């Protein structure tokens, strides 16, 4: 019996996603016992709601990082989607779904362009996506502050505000996204290919993997998920503004790495990113309620991340 427990613990220690999940449970337990209000159902639900946004952005980021790339344009894509969506929703469509579809198509298209640049121009993904973020800033100078109106799109508001069966619809969306991404990574040929690409692009190419197509598809997906997150944030805030997506760039990368995925690609899973996202949100929430000067808060936040990393993020090399 005892032996079994030990062996379960051992497998957990060797399994980064599980370890990160355990960590989340531990932090939640400790915080609930010590902090008033933390353990309330409403609060935990709210934490999950916030995690959903990061989790959805990080879904695309995970795919891209697993392939050995990175997407620095997710923040800008989120902002662009959130700003454009109200402009795009035709008033003739009461459901608002068409506006949603158009916005997602634009986000996906931006991602696709990222992929095309990386694949055809052979620009390193970091430069390509950084340049894309710059282009999008230019776009924002044009559209932002113009005729943007508060979102009245029914579908968006439902996503951001509704709680069918007591579960926020954003969290439901996240669950659906997680299922899809996990299936993609672990149950489709594309998933196996992107892992191989991340671990050894040359051998993968010689094994007949179409590198160009994989890049196009995956960066497009990353754009899509960033767009989806943008819509969700828009719904939660009822209004988009310039800079709304900025905080999600580094957080999405941090969630991926905290979940045990190698930043170099080829190793990891979205199953780790999920608790990684929750961990980040939890840490932020914990720091918020502490009454300390901004400098000390920042130090505490950094130290907490580092401490969590010590437990979950060991990496063989580098």
């Amino acid at each position, binding site marked *: 019996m005892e032996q079994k427990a030990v062996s379960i613990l051992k497998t957990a220690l060797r399994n980064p996603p599980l370890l990160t999940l355990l960590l989340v449970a531990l932090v939640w337990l400790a915080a609930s016992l010590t902090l008033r209000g933390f353990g309330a159902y409403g609060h935990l639900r709210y934490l999950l709601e916030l995690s959903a946004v990061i989790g959805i952005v990080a879904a695309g980021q995970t795919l891209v990082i697993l392939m050995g790339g990175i997407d620095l344009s997710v923040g800008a894509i989120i902002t662009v989607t959130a700003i454009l969506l109200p402009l795009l929703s035709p008033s003739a469509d009461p459901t608002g779904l068409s506006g949603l579809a158009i916005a997602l198509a634009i986000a996906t298209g931006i991602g696709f362009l990222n992929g095309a640049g990386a694949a055809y121009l052979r620009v390193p993904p970091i430069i390509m996506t950084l340049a894309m973020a710059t282009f999008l800033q230019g776009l924002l100078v044009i559209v932002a502050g113009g005729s943007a109106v508060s979102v009245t799109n029914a579908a968006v508001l439902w996503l951001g505000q509704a709680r069918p069966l007591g579960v926020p619809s954003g969290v439901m969306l996240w669950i659906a996204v997680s299922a899809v991404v996990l*299936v993609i990574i672990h*149950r*489709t*040929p594309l998933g*196996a*290919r992107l*892992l*191989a690409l991340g*671990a*050894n692009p*040359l*051998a*993968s*190419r*010689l*094994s*007949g*993997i*179409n590198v160009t197509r994989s890049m196009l598809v995956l960066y497009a997906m990353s754009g899509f998920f960033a767009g989806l997150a943008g819509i969700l944030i828009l719904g939660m805030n009822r209004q988009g503004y310039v800079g709304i997506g900025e905080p999600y760039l580094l957080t999405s990368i941090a969630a991926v790495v905290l979940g045990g995925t190698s930043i170099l690609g*080829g*190793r990891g899973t979205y199953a780790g990113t999920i608790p990684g996202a929750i961990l980040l949100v939890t840490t932020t929430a914990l720091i918020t309620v502490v009454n300390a000067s901004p400098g000390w808060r920042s130090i505490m936040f950094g130290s907490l991340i580092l401490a969590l990393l010590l437990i979950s993020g060991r990496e063989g090399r580098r």
Partner: protein
Amino acid sequence: MMKTLPLLEARQVFKGFFGNPVLKGVDIALEPGRVHALLGENGAGKSTLINLLSGALRPDSGEIRVDGVPVSRFHPAAARAAGIAVVQQELSLTAELSIAENIGLGAFPRRFGLIDYAALSARASEVCELVGLTESLCTPVGDLSLGRRQMVEIAKALFRKPRVLILDEPTSSLSAHEAGILSRLIERLRGAGIALLYISHRLNEVQALCSHVTVLKDGVVTADQPLAGIDAQGLVRLMVGRDAGDLFPAWELPRRGEELIRLRGFSSGLARDVDFSASAGEIVGIGGLVGQGQEDFLLGLYGAMGSSAREAVIAGRSGPLKSVEAANAAGLAYVPADRKREGLVLPHSIASNLLLPSLGRIAKLGLRDRGAERNLVARLVKRLRIKGETSRPVQALSGGNQQKVALAKWLPLAPSVLLLNDPTRGVDIETKREIYLMLKSFAREGTLIILLSSDTPELVHLCDRVTVFGEGRAVATLPRELISEEAIVGAAMGINPKGSAP
């Protein structure tokens, strides 16, 4: 003569990984002025043993002795200090640095704390001369072919003026010419009183160079004796524990099918203006000195490198192939020489490596079919006798088994053209035989096999025709009856044989 004191010894060493014993009480003693051969099948534990001898790994039990004195807590720095140098097959070079800087790395001559480039240049050119490296010392190692890099690696070991030199399969990526230089070098080093340990799967080399042999089988020493008086058959018997048949299967007349490849004026990379044709069921050899454009020729055919041609028909399609995917679709498969970099995804499991090219084919409704995948992997593992659990990373396999994985992954596609780039590099004799038999049977089933090999006997015994490359051009094509080691080397050196001009 008094028995000389061994410079380096292992006494009753045990070593296992994750509970699997690899070495079970092994003894070995390296004496000055002797070339000691270490033989064994793939996975017998040779690399593990030299890792113990060089301090890279620590034995579970048993001891390592330097100059007869047991050393506790042996580590690489101590080994270097004791004059032990290892030429691993896995290169320890830095692509961006120059030849000279690579050779000196970790042991730079210094002046005022800075690297003394003048001294480095002098000493590096000395060792380069020894190993026959003629490239400018400032050439970045990344620009060199695999064989030349191997020579840099050897030069790097010599640079440290070792007393004990361990060579792990040094010739497997060398051309015959370079191998010749190496064997003369080994003679000289032995004469200078250095203790050498030589690991190779090429028994003729072992017999020519070595005077003493230790044979490992399943982690124990099955022989530790002078080489004199043992012939190749005897060595094989010691290694595999039974009589070995002929290494090469008997040549048989190919049943040529339709013409699968016809090229006129084909160029890609170093390969220039090549005319070439081949038909189903044939085994066509590609030979010549290393680095004459043979590899680029295969890569161009395979669509992995830009190519052009006046006329090209490849597996029924006209025009050169534009991508690997198109090549795979046309029925071409390519097994690269550098399996670690180009052939395998090392950190991934054996199973995922085996499945990589066929993922799309066995997917159902866009999802992977686990059952079918398991069956396929099991079939491949069985057919090629790949040892090791299929969920383990392929980097934990010994070199020979890795090679089998690199070949096996293509079989599910039933390729009609198999492009092989040195498929038996670093592969033990039994596995070689298996691979040869397999190639024969593929050919018999109608596959066209194009075999690029640096191991000339392979070309001689297996091929129906051999095209010899020189300076990027196909300088000669030898028909079966004219193939011999002399003819191939001769053609490569520009001595026109009686064979047909291409």
